[in-house]
C-alpha cells in the first residue's frame, strides 16, 4: 500500500492525520456547507447582513416547505424523474444488445462500429445542437419530455456500448461456445447465458446514467422550455428568477435539486464507482 500505512508511523503522525481529515473535508465541502447554512436561515438574516453568523432562528422547515409547496419545484423534480428513468431503461436496453453484438461476434466492421460509438460519445454537444433541435421540432416533440428522452437514449448509447462491450469481452467465452455446441439459438444465448452475467454492469451503468441525465442542463435548455416539461436543472433558473434575492429559498431549491443523484450515489456507491472507474484498473 502507498503511501505507507499510517498505523506504522509514529503516534504523532497518526493523531495529526486523524485531526487533519475533518479539517480537509470541511474546507473541501465549504462552499456547499455554506449553501446548506443559507437554506435554514430566515429571510431577515439576509436583510440584516447576518450572512455567516448563526441563524437568528431556524427556518429550515419553512424554507423547504416553500420550495415544495409554493413553487414549481415539485413539477420540475417530477419532470426530471420522467426524463431520467426512461432514458436509463432505454439506453441500458439498447446497449446490452449492441455491447453483446460487438463483444461476442467477430465480423469485419466490428471494430469500426465500436469506434464510431466511442467517437460519437466524445463529440461536442454544439455540433449536434441545431440538427437535433430541428429533428425534434419536425417530430413535433419540441418542448416534450419524450423529445428529450429520445435524444438522451441515443446519445448515451455511445458510452453504454463502450462500457457493455468491454464488460462482455471480459466474460468467459467458453460459456457461449458451449451453448452453441448445444445448439442454442443466439437470441437465447443472449437472454439466458449472457444477460444474467451482465447484472453488475447493468447496475453500474444505470446509476451512472441516472446521474448524467439528471444533471444534464444543456439539452434541457435546447429542447424544452417552461414548467410542463423542463427538468430541475433548467427549472432552477426560473425558480431563482421567481425568488430573486431570497437566498434562503434559492439555497434550499439548489439543495433539493442536487439531492436525488446524491441519494442514488450513497445508496448504490459500489456500483457507481465500479461504473466510473471501469478500465481504470487492469
Amino acid at each position, binding site marked *: 500500500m502507498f503511501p505507507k500505512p499510517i498505523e506504522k508511523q509514529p503516534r504523532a503522525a497518526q493523531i495529526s492525520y486523524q485531526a487533519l481529515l475533518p479539517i480537509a473535508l470541511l474546507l473541501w465541502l465549504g462552499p456547499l456547507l*455554506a449553501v446548506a447554512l*443559507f437554506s435554514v436561515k430566515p429571510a431577515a438574516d439576509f436583510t440584516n447582513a447576518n450572512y455567516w453568523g448563526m441563524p437568528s432562528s431556524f427556518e429550515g422547515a419553512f424554507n423547504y416547505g416553500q420550495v415544495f409547496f409554493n413553487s414549481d419545484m415539485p413539477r420540475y423534480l417530477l419532470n426530471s424523474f420522467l426524463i431520467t428513468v426512461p432514458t436509463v431503461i432505454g439506453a441500458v436496453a*439498447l446497449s446490452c444488445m449492441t455491447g453483446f*453484438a460487438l463483444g461476442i461476434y467477430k465480423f469485419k466492421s466490428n471494430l469500426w462500429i465500436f469506434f464510431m460509438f466511442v467517437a460519437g460519445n466524445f463529440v461536442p454537444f454544439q455540433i449536434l445542437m441545431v440538427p437535433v433541435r430541428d429533428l425534434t421540432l419536425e417530430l413535433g416533440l419540441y418542448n416534450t419530455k419524450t423529445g428529450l428522452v*429520445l435524444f438522451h*437514449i441515443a446519445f448515451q448509447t455511445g458510452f453504454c456500448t463502450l462500457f457493455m462491450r468491454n464488460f462482455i469481452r471480459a466474460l468467459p467465452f467458453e460459456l457461449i461456445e458451449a451453448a452453441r455446441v448445444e445448439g442454442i439459438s443466439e437470441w437465447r444465448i443472449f437472454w439466458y447465458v449472457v444477460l444474467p452475467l451482465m447484472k453488475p454492469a447493468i447496475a453500474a451503468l444505470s446509476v451512472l446514467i441516472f446521474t448524467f441525465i439528471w444533471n444534464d*442542463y444543456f439539452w434541457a435548455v435546447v429542447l424544452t422550455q417552461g414548467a410542463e416539461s423542463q427538468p430541475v436543472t433548467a427549472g432552477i433558473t426560473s425558480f431563482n428568477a421567481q425568488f430573486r434575492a431570497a437566498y434562503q429559498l434559492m439555497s434550499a431549491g439548489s439543495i433539493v435539486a442536487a439531492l436525488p*443523484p446524491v441519494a442514488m450515489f450513497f445508496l448504490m456507491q459500489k456500483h457507481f464507482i465500479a461504473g466510473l472507474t471501469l478500465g*481504470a484498473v487492469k
Partner: protein
Amino acid sequence: MTAVVDTPEQESWFHRNQQRIAPWLFLAPGLLFFMVYVIIPVFQSFNLSLYEWDGLGAAEYVGMRNYEDLYWEWVDRDAFYISLKNNLIWLVLYLAAIPAGLFIALFLNQTVWGIRLYKSLFFFPFVISQVVVGLVFTWFYDPTFGLLNEFLGLFGMGPLNVLGDERFVTYGIIFAGLWPQTAYCMILYLTGLNAVDPEQIEAGRLDGAKGGRMLWHIILPQLRPATFIAFVVTIIGALRSFDLISIMTQGGPFGSSRVLAYYMFEVALSEYGFRMGYGAAIAVILFLIMLCFIAYFLWSMYREEKGH
C-alpha cells in the same frame, strides 16, 4: 425483438446464417438511434455551416462566408478570438484536476476508522449537477457576502468581484469546474491505488525508494490506466464547459468569459439572434479541436485492442 421466426424453411435458413445475421439484428436498434441523433447531425452541421439560416425561413447558401467572418473576428480579437483563447486556458488549467485528484487520493489512501465515509464525501462534488456547482460558486465569489471575500477580509484584502472582473472571471469559473473534476480524478486514482502491486512496493522499499521517488518510479507507472482515463475525461470536460459559464456569468462581463461551446449557443439560440449557420461554423471549429483528441484516444484504444 425476437428475430427467430418459427416457420420451418426460414428457421433452417436462419440457422445456417445465424451467426452472421445475429450481430446486425442486435446492433440495429442502437445503431439506428445513434445514427439518427448523433452521426448524421454531425454531417448536417458541417453542411449547415455553409448556409445562412435564421431557423425559420429558407436557408441561403453562402459558401465559406461564415468561416471568413470567424476569421475576421479572430483578426479583430473579437468574440471568436476571446472564446478560443478561453478554451485554451480551460484546456490547460483543467488538467490541474489530475495532479490534484492524485494528491487527494494519496492523502485518503489509508485504512483508518471512517475513511470510507471520508472518501465518499470527498467525491460528493462530482455527483451534484454543474448547475448547482455554478450557483454555489457564484455565491462563494459574491463581493458582498461571499466566503471568498470574508476570507480575504481576514487579511485586510478585497473585496474582489471575481465574476465581474474581466481579468479574473474565466479563472474563477475554471476553479469552480475543478472542484467536481478533481473529485472525479480522485476516485479514479483511489481505485487505481487499490490495485497497485504490494510486492513491488516492498521491493522498492528494500531498495531504499520512498516518498517522491517511490511515487514516480513505482506507483505512477502502475497508475497509467487511471491517468489515461483521467486525461480523457478532463479534456472532454474542459471542451464541453458550458453549464458553469451559462449559470455563473452568461459569458460576461462583456463576453469575456465565453468559450466556443457557449458562444455557439449564444449565436444560434439566444435573444441575440438565431444565426444557425454561423453557430454551426463555430461548432465545426470546436468539433475539429475535439477531433484531434478523439483521434488520439481512438488510436490508443486501437493499439490496446491489437495488443491483446
